């Protein structure tokens, strides 16, 4: 396959995979925590927080990317803090691209894991606790195995979304080959260059193949989600 690709195209593919994988795995614990909050807890401001989590889905990506630029630029409040504390700069490098991709994948991942959590009877954890499990042990030994298909679905959907990120990435970290030029950005560049349409088509086919594989895998896993039994639905406090 790599024989078909120029080093420049291979770099775009490799960078895309690195950015997308980093993004989904880095954001997974936060997304799981959010999903758990939405599925299991009621607190003031829950609708507001749920709305904020959905923002990357509803805002135009360019707007979101510009917001990231303002926040995480060297002069931005968060970017300045990151640099002062850890010497980390996000702007114009692949870590920034991963941040943009993570933010865009986040709402999809939260939603997918929230649905999985809502299908698990919370009293299963209570049963585990009466049998001697601490709350973290009950979560890890009972709930987590039961939502595993949902977590995998979240990873795959998030990965596909991260792979396709364009608007926020190009606004936030620009289009630097080998550094921030992921597949969509490379396709965009090729499509803009006269005579390079063939290369663009190859990358397009590559993107379609990766996205299709991810979707098929997620469908197969979704079918294995635990289904709440009728008896559990009838359960009422007496």
């Amino acid at each position, binding site marked *: 396959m790599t024989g078909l690709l120029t080093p420049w195209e291979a770099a775009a593919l490799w960078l895309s995979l690195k950015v997308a994988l980093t993004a989904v795995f880095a954001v997974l614990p936060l997304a799981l925590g959010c999903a758990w909050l939405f599925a299991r807890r009621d607190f003031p401001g829950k609708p507001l927080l749920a709305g904020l989590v959905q923002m990357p889905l509803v805002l135009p990506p360019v707007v979101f990317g510009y917001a990231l630029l303002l926040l995480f630029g060297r002069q931005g409040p968060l970017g300045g803090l990151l640099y002062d504390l850890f010497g980390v700069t996000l702007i114009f490098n692949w870590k920034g691209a991963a941040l943009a991709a993570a933010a865009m994948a986040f709402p999809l991942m939260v939603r997918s894991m929230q649905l999985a959590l809502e299908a698990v009877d919370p009293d299963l954890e*209570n049963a585990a606790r009466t049998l*001697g499990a601490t709350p973290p042990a009950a979560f890890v030994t009972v709930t987590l195995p039961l939502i595993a298909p949902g977590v995998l679905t979240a990873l795959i959907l998030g990965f596909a979304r991260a792979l396709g990120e364009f608007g926020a990435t190009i606004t936030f970290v620009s289009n630097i080959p080998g550094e921030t030029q992921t597949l969509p950005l490379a396709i965009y560049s090729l499509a803009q260059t006269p005579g390079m349409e063939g290369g663009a088509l190859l990358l397009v086919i590559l993107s379609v193949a990766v996205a299709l594989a991810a979707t098929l895998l997620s469908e197969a896993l979704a079918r294995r989600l635990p289904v709440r039994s009728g008896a559990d639905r009838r359960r009422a406090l007496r």
Partner: protein
Amino acid sequence: MIEVDITARLGAFGLEAAFSVTETTTALFGPSGCGKTSLVRAIAGLQRPRAGHIRVNGVPLFDAARGIDLPPEKRGIGYVFQESLLFPHLDVRANLLYGRRRGRAAPFGLAEVVRLLELEPLLDRRPERLSGGERQRVAIGRALLAATRLLLLDEPLSSLDARRKQEILPFLERVRDDLRIPAIYVSHAMDEVLRLADAMVVMDQGRVVRAGRVEDVVNQLEPPAAGSWRRGGAVLRAVVAGHHREWGLTGLRVGSQELSVPAIGSPPGSWLRVRIRARDVILCMGDPGPVSTRNRLRGSILSIRPPEGQGPDGPEMDVLLDVEGGRLRARVTRQSVADLALRPGLSVLALIKAAAVEPGAPAKEHADRTGPAPVPGKG
């Protein structure tokens, strides 16, 4: 010894429950929505009371005044939920051993519980491949293996149909008789209470209205609360004395006296409860002479009252007897009370035409019966 005195939030009326029992198996009885489940969830540590204390054998599990509130995993209480709540991703064996793998060591082992509940053929199955009754049996086993202090059963039969219930009841009896673990059994079904419990706590609208030995409590309950099974009658505790195969009868001992009922399968020495309707009891002063009724219990009159819903000038009276600590009720005409000069303290002979054996008999003899039914008399 289980001591509970708590207040908790519960619906419109709030939960204010106080009782203490020393018996091994205690039934928590009352209508739906009276707070039974909230109370057992508080005992298990799944719901936090506002105030009060919960102690089991002197060990405080919760004590608001002393700031004690053990989490559920530290209480040593096995909990059988209304729905079995087996872990769907684990097979039966792993479900049973879940508590043991987390440091809970009940005084009985896996082998004993598997034998008692006949779980051997199910061990390698997933919960989705079990019937409702099998699931509940596994849930009982799982809770037992984690019960170091107390077993809570929250209407474990309520999700099963009548036939499955009758299949599970003998297992619960075996657990009670063989393992002797203190247990609280929540139910709104009087037949289950009569069959399983030593003591009972009656709840209504979040409050404990009565607590004590099952016979004592049941014989005081108003008919609406007790359900159709009582309707002018009483429950006696009896021990199986022996079987008379040639007559098809089983002899039961009530104190030092004997009562015969149509043959049942319970082994000699086991106890059970007998329901005797007030209308089936004839009171007799002195020797009745040659009559066909063989069941005779001597007792002394405790009280004479008009039956429920009838004024003092009505035709009938209910006579409550003490039979060596047990209770018997006879419905006679007011005229008979006057003619025989019946009065509290008087010793009388009660002739019993029919007695319905409520609990204790093996399930196969009762499989076709969901509620109490009168047993044909021998008159």
